[in-house]
C-alpha cells in the first residue's frame, strides 16, 4: 500500500506555562519536534508498506524550521519520500485548520495516487483537529477519525475508532483519509543508519498557488474566516489539608469519617 502522511513540526512547552507581568502566558519551549500523534500515523503507514514494496510519503506545511525537523524525523523512521508544502494562499489564516486542510488536499492531489492519507488525530499546538476532515471533504474521500486499530484485507481497511460510548468497527474501501490516535500502535525507534541518511536527504517541495479541489467561492469564504481557536483553561483545584491525629484526639477517627461523609466521599 502507498500512503501519504501529513505531519507537523510543533513547538512544545518544556516548563509549566505561567502568566508574566503583561498578563501573557509564557513558558520555555523546545525546538520543533515531530507532533507525537503524527509518529503514530507514520508508524501505521510504515506497517501498511512493510514487506509489500509499499511507499510512505510524508508532507508538511508550516514554518521552514519546523517543517524540516518534522520531515527529517519522519525519514529517520523510514519514510520513503519527504515533501515540503509551500503556499502563499494561507498567509492571513495560517491557523485556520479548515483552510490548511484544503491546501493539503491540493498538495495530495499533486503528489500522486495514494491508498491511504494519514494524519495524527490532533496537533499539540493547534488541537482543534479539523485538518483531516477538511482534507477528506476537499478530496471527496471517506474519512475516519480517531482510529485506534487498523488492518488491511486486499483493498479494504478494517478499522476501530473511538467515540464517547465505546468503539466503532467497520470496513472501508481505499482510498480513504484516516486520523489515528496515539493508541493505535507503538511507533518504532529510528535506526542510527536511517537517521544519518535522513540528515542529508533531499527534501522535495510542492507549491500550491491555486485551489482546484473545492470551488473558488467556497475557498474565498473559508480562507477569509478568522482562525478557529479553542482555549482550554485548567480549573484551579482547591486543595485543603486537614490532619486528624489519633494521638492528640481520640475522637479523630469519627471526625474523619464525618468529614468524608459530608464531602460525599463515603
Amino acid at each position, binding site marked *: 500500500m502507498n500512503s501519504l502522511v501529513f505531519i507537523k513540526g510543533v513547538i512544545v512547552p518544556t516548563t509549566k506555562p505561567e502568566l508574566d507581568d503583561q498578563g501573557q502566558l509564557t513558558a520555555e519551549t523546545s525546538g520543533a519536534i515531530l507532533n507525537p500523534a503524527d509518529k503514530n500515523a507514520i508508524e501505521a503507514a510504515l506497517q501498511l508498506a512493510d514487506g509489500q514494496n509499499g511507499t510512505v510519503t510524508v508532507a508538511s506545511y508550516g514554518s521552514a524550521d519546523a517543517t524540516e525537523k518534522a520531515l527529517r524525523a519522519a525519514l529517520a523512521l523510514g519514510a520513503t519520500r519527504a515533501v515540503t508544502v509551500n503556499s502563499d494562499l494561507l498567509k492571513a489564516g495560517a491557523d485556520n485548520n479548515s483552510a490548511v486542510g484544503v491546501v493539503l488536499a491540493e498538495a495530495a492531489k499533486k503528489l500522486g495516487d495514494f491508498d491511504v492519507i494519514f494524519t495524527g488525530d490532533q496537533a499539540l499546538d493547534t488541537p482543534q483537529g479539523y485538518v483531516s476532515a477538511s482534507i477528506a471533504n476537499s478530496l471527496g474521500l471517506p474519512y475516519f477519525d480517531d482510529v485506534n486499530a487498523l488492518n488491511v484485507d486486499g483493498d479494504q481497511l478494517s478499522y476501530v475508532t473511538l467515540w464517547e460510548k465505546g468503539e466503532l468497527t467497520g470496513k472501508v474501501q481505499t482510498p480513504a483519509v484516516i486520523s489515528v490516535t496515539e493508541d493505535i500502535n507503538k511507533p*518504532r*525507534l*529510528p*535506526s*542510527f*543508519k536511517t*537517521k*544519518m*541518511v535522513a*540528515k542529508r536527504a533531499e527534501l522535495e517541495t510542492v507549491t500550491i498557488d491555486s485551489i482546484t479541489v473545492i470551488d473558488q467561492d467556497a475557498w474565498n469564504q473559508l480562507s477569509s474566516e478568522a482562525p478557529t481557536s479553542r482555549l482550554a483553561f485548567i480549573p484551579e483545584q482547591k486543595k485543603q489539608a486537614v490532619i486528624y491525629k489519633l494521638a492528640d484526639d481520640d475522637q479523630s477517627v469519627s471526625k474523619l469519617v464525618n468529614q468524608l461523609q459530608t464531602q460525599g466521599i463515603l
Partner: protein
Amino acid sequence: MALLYTDEQKDFLKMVKEFADETLTPEVVKECDEKGECPEELFKPAFDMGLHMLEIPEKFGGAGLSYATTAMIFEKLASYDPGYAITLVSTFVALRSVMIAGTDEQVQHFADIIAPGKFAAFALSESNAGTDAGSVQATATREGDDYILNGDKTFITNGSLADVFVGIFRTSDDGNKGLSAFIVEKSRGGIAAGKHEDKMGLRLSNTTDVTFDHVKVPAANRIGDEGHGLKVALNSLNLSRAFVATLAVGIMQRALDESVKYAKLRKQFNRPIIKFEAVQEMLADMATQTEASRLMVNNTMKMMDEGSLVRKEGAMTKTFVTDAVQKATSDAVQIFGGYGVSKDYPVEKLMRDCKVFQIFEGTNQIQRVTIANELNREYSD
C-alpha cells in the same frame, strides 16, 4: 558530565536511553544475570536500530558514526548492562578486524551476514594460549584452494550465538609468524560451541568454547597474508581496548548514580549519610575517576578517528579505566552498607560485572608491559 556533546550526540544518547529503558528493564537484566543466559530475541530491537554496526561505514551497511560518538552510545548502554553491550561490541569489533587487513569484498561479505541481525565473534584464545597469544595451536591446513581448520578456542564471546567468526589459526610452525586469520562462517559446518561459561559477572554475555572440526573454508576467506594473523589480531585488540574501557565507564557512572541517590536517602544518626565526610570522599573520588576515565576514552577514540593505531593510548586507557572501575564499584557496595551485598540492590552486580574487564582484551599486567615497551621505543634515541 565533562564532555561537550553535539546536538546530534545528545539526540543519539536520548535514543539509546529510550531504547534501553524499554529493552533492558531491571527485571530483564536481573533475570539474565540470575540465569546466566543471553536470550537472542533480546537483541532484535538492537539489530533493528543498527546498534551492532554503528561505526561501520555506510557503504558496508553501517551507520558511519565516529568512534567517539559510538563510544558515548555504548557507555550509556553499558550502564544498563555491560554484558548486553559487549555482545554488540564483539560483533562489530570482529567486522573491524576484517576491515583492518581484509579486502573490500571480504568486508562486504562479513557485513552482509551480520547486517540483517546476526552476531559475530573473534576467536583467538585457547586453553594454552591466553596472554601468550602467539602460542595458538589450532591449525589451518592448505588443501588446494581451501583451508581445513581444526582446534579448540576458549572463552569466546558470542561463541554459541555467532553466525560468523574471525579465527586465528596456525598455518606454519614459525612461532608468532606462523599464524593466519580467517573468516569462518558457521554455515560451513563442523563448528560446535561448548556450554555457556558460568561466570561471576557479565553473565548475560555469552562465553563458550568453540571447536572447529575439519571446517573447510576457501582460501579467499583468509584475511591478509599467510603468517600475518597475529598482527591482524593485535591491531584489532588495539581498537577494541578503548571500547572495553567505554563499557567500564558506563559501569562506573551507574555506580556513581546509584551511590549518590542512596547516600541522599539513607539516614543514620538522623542525617543522610551523604553528609558524612567519609562517604563524601568515596563519592567525590568515584565522580572524579569517572570523569577522568570518560575523557581518556574520548581522547583515545578521537585519535582512532584520526587513524591512529593507539597502541600505547589504547593500553593506557584500558588499564586506567578498568582499574578505576574496581574501586568505584567496591565503594558503591561500601556506601550501601549491608544492603550493598544484597542481590536485591543494584550495586553488587556492578562489582561482579567489572572484574573481567581487567582480564580480557589482554590483562592489565600485559597492558603495562605494552605501555612500557612503547615508552622504551619512544625514548630510544
